[in-house]
């Protein structure tokens, strides 16, 4: 690990599995790897969604008051109650996906593939896999399994430790 090479290293704990929150960890992981850092990602709770073979990431205005979307020349937030209306969440997701394409932002599958290519190590939390009844076969190849101690050991050797 860190002491075997002279490379600096970074760990990221990924706890969220929505389309918007999938970005920060994958952006920093791929960029860190590109800048020569050894990067370890630890996926727990809803972050496990980011490792699934079948990526179906969505986002919701619910509990997301800062989510203001550019619409008709201004920025509009959606009231929480709007999420109760059918198709509002899928509409917000579609809108985000369109913005991503238009603005030349990478897609999450693209960033995830680049992370894998760059030898970013991905560890899935064994306990949350059990809790939500997922198995290694549900996730992309190369994911390792581990627990809290695995993370602590990686983090102790690491220069940058982030929780997202």
């Amino acid at each position, binding site marked *: 690990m860190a002491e075997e090479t002279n490379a600096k290293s970074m760990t990221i704990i990924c706890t969220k599995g929505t389309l918007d929150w999938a970005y920060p960890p994958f*952006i920093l992981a*791929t960029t860190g790897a*590109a*800048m*020569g850092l050894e990067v370890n990602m630890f996926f727990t709770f809803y972050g496990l969604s980011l490792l699934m073979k079948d990526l179906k990431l969505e986002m919701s205005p619910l509990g997301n008051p800062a989510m203001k979307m550019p619409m008709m020349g201004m920025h509009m937030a959606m009231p929480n109650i709007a999420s109760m209306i059918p198709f509002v969440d899928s509409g917000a997701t579609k809108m985000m996906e369109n913005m991503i394409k238009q603005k*030349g932002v*990478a897609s999450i599958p693209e960033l995830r593939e680049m992370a894998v290519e760059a030898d970013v190590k991905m560890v899935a939390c064994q306990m949350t896999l059990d809790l939500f009844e997922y198995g290694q076969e549900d996730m992309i190849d190369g994911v390792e399994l581990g627990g809290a101690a695995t993370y602590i050991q990686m983090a102790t050797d690491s220069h940058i430790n982030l929780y997202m």
Partner: protein
Amino acid sequence: MSEHVLDAKGLNCPLPILKAKKALKAVPSGEVLEILSTDPGSVADFSAFCKQTGNELVESSSEGDVYKFKIKHTA
């Protein structure tokens, strides 16, 4: 001088950096990679990228809304 050119126009963070890193692998040591970008954030980012990786940022300039970077592959 730069025969290695990466067109990263229209791409947003962190794609210009990621593509540049990939492109640098094919550039022999001592030679220069030229990168074109339209992402204003890439000005600070390529400077940071070079500081961190030890590659030399030979040029950072702009023409209209296109940013041009020249990175000498030294690391």
